[in-house]
């Protein structure tokens, strides 16, 4: 790791620009009533981090309980509540908004040359809805939690538990609208507010990925909303729509629930893939191989993602015909994701690769997402799914793609754009250490779970047969290391706000309009509307720019 592409201004004379979006206005209200997409992104970043640590603490409790085969740390009912809340918080209050609401909100207008998103007030509303949903989720936890599993399967959730299903449902309902409004905003912005010269195929792939994810948010989330409404009606007045005793069908709940929840996983991963496209190009000094293929594969994932939901229901009682169709379609949906991995790999080929922190996380993503994705293929085949579903194999699969994939991409993105958002660089050595620690901790935590799953350990069980203990102990040990790996960024990123080196406009020598403005950017992003006159990831254009560039005056 000797070379680096980092190019910082002379630290003895460099200053953070005096006028930027942070210093423009002061006072709490100027943040709480802001329309500035960058400030809203920062608000989201703080709240999302908060919920990540709550979800993480719950994960810690799960792993602690699973150190021993008996259910000795907590009662099994409590354990059920712990993993349910872990799932709900991590999915709805961390993963779904993570990259879109923080990085997407911050960067999309900058990347396309716009002054803000199309609907700033809706953007702010989206944050308030997120916070309201989050507070309600915390209230649910404080008043006894919910123990149905994040999937709220009926008739358990409608008839057999006495826990806070309704409040949790309401929290998720509200958070869902937050997600819908974010997606709606992105779609309108990307269609209508690109600067002159910014054609669809000159947009960064980050924007394409968010566009695809936004389509899913807008079209999929409302179905979750109506499902929650029906569960609420079922629980309160017993309308009978999911109750077999009244002629209802519990499987209908699952159809409606998974119609959203499968696209939800693509909502979660696509923005992360967008980040990877950016970092892999920058740290290979090469344009992304097959730009068009990567752009269209994002949209393809979004479209195909709507047709595969019943692969979560293979053992639930759907017809054999449905199993066949959904299994086949699931095989197809793996193709666009694989296309991306191939294209990113070919981007690396003959590139000038350097190993700064974002690139370490990117490599982590490539390896771990590939493993997670391949195990998804085993699960998409109905024959093997019957044996592997509801075991730890599934748990390992989705943690590989979501944590090994998405969370690593999120961290890559946070580190990559941190200098742009704050004007300061984080300390490189410790951040690289954190990335390596995270990678090691992650593999130690979740790889044993694949083995546990194939050996037959079921998921969502507090107590398990003693022969599974050794692997569980490895997993918990890994979780401890992983926790350290996630704690470190909080510490050094916060430290860097005051003591980090001044980053300047473009510390990574990256292409992209966001790197051509000051760090942190002005409130209005661009004083003059930019004109996009070159292709995306055009490093030759960048070379020409450097020759003629005048550094900004603070």
């Amino acid at each position, binding site marked *: 790791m000797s070379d680096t592409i980092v190019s910082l201004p002379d630290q003895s004379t460099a200053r953070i*620009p005096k*006028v930027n979006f942070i210093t423009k206005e002061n006072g709490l209200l100027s943040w709480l009533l802001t329309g500035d997409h960058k400030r809203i992104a920062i608000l989201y970043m703080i709240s999302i981090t908060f919920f990540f640590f709550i979800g993480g603490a719950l994960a810690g409790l799960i792993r602690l309980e699973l150190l021993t085969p008996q259910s000795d740390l907590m009662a099994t009912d409590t354990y059920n509540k712990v993993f349910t809340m872990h799932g709900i918080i991590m999915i709805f209050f961390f993963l779904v908004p993570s990259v879109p609401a923080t990085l997407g909100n911050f960067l999309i207008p900058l990347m396309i040359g*716009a*002054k*803000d998103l*199309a*609907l*700033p007030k*809706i953007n702010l509303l989206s944050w308030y809805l997120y916070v309201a949903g989050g507070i309600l989720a915390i209230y649910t936890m404080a008043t006894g939690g919910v123990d149905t599993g994040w999937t709220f399967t009926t008739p358990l959730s409608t008839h057999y538990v006495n826990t806070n299903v309704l409040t949790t449902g309401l929290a998720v309902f509200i958070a869902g609208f937050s997600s*819908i409004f974010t997606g*709606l*905003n992105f*779609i*309108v*912005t990307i*269609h*209508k*507010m690109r600067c002159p010269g910014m054609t669809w195929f000159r947009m960064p792939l980050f924007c394409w990925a968010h566009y695809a994810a936004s389509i899913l948010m*807008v*079209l999929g*989330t*409302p*179905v979750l*909303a*109506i*499902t929650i*409404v*029906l569960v609420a*009606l079922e629980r309160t*007045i*017993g*309308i*009978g*729509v999911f109750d077999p005793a*009244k*002629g*209802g*069908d519990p499987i*209908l709940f699952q*159809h*409606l629930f998974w*119609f959203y929840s499968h696209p939800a996983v693509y909502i979660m991963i696509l923005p992360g893939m967008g980040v990877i496209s950016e970092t892999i190009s920058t740290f290979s000094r090469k344009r992304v191989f097959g730009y068009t293929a990567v752009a269209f594969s994002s949209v393809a994932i979004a479209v195909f993602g709507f047709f595969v939901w019943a692969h979560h229901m293979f053992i639930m009682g759907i017809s054999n015909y449905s199993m066949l169709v959904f299994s086949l379609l699931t095989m197809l949906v793996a193709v666009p994701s694989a296309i991306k991995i191939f294209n990113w790999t070919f981007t690396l080929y003959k590139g000038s690769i350097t190993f700064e922190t974002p690139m370490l996380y990117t490599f982590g993503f490539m390896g771990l997402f590939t493993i997670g994705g391949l195990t998804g293929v085993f699960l998409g085949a109905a024959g093997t799914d019957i044996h592997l579903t509801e075991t730890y194999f599934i748990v390992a699969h989705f943690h590989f793609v979501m944590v090994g994939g998405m969370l690593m991409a999120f961290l890559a993105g946070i580190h990559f754009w941190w200098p742009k958002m704050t004007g300061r660089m984080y300390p490189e050595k410790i951040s690289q250490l954190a990335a390596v620690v995270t990678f090691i901790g992650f593999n130690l935590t979740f790889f044993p779970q694949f083995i546990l799953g194939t050996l037959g350990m079921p998921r969502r069980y507090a107590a398990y047969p003693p022969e599974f203990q050794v692997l569980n102990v490895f997993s918990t040990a890994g979780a401890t290391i992983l926790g350290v790996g996630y704690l470190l960024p909080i510490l050094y990123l916060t430290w860097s706000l005051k003591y980090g080196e001044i980053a300047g406009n473009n510390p990574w020598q990256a292409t992209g309009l966001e790197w*051509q*403005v*000051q760090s942190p950017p*002005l409130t*209005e992003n661009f*004083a*003059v*509307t*930019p*004109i*996009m*006159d070159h292709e995306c990831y055009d490093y030759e254009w960048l070379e*020409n*720019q450097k020759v003629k*560039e*005048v550094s*900004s*005056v603070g």
Partner: protein
Amino acid sequence: MSDSTAIAHAAPDDPHAGGHEAHPAYLRHHFENVEQQADAAGFAMWLFLLTEVMFFGGLFTAYLIYRNWYYPAFVAGSHQLNIFWGTLNTAVLITSSFTMAMGVWCAETRKKSGLVLCLVLTFILGLGFLGIKTVEYKEKIEKHHVPGFHYSLNSFLNPDSDAEAKAAGDKPLAPDMAEHTEVYFSLYFAMTGMHALHMIIGIAILGYMIFRARAGAYTSGHVTFVENFGLYWHFVDIIWIFLFPLLYLISRHPN
């Protein structure tokens, strides 16, 4: 060529200083011109309507499944609804869609009093729709056809005891099929209730709009709000256009 087009300068503090060209007050600064703003707002409204389509989609899915499974129960349930009120409500809503469309035309052609009249008519028709709905719901409550609130199977086990069932010439249902009428009414209340909720929200916004229209807010070139609300109102009309035959007109032909 590669001058400072893509590099930001420090901005002057007052964006209106230095020869800034005149623009309407309602142009938000992140838009280049009013056309872009109106276009973006319209597109955003359409996307919101897409979310509404998917929201109701879940209910329509449930309806289609259970109608297929429990057809006789759905027939019996549907016969409990009053075709006169249902048809009248449909006509009321279609007319309100017409008055709303006329309202948009008045806004576009800057006819303030015409716009206010059309909005008031739409408002009244909307209230009329809800009033008729109240009458219908009241009848359901009286006959204990509300799921979860002392739901009664009497009308379906003994059709002769029930005026509507007798008029439709219904035969008694088997006990288990009679129980499934509760599923029909669950969907009836869920779908019409959700629709009515959207009507109420729409009427509330209409009230606000009448107030603003009288002040001339929409007849000076800035028609976006009225246009986009019109889209919402027409969408609510479309939902009812489907709810009416699906709920009211199941097997109405005399046998």
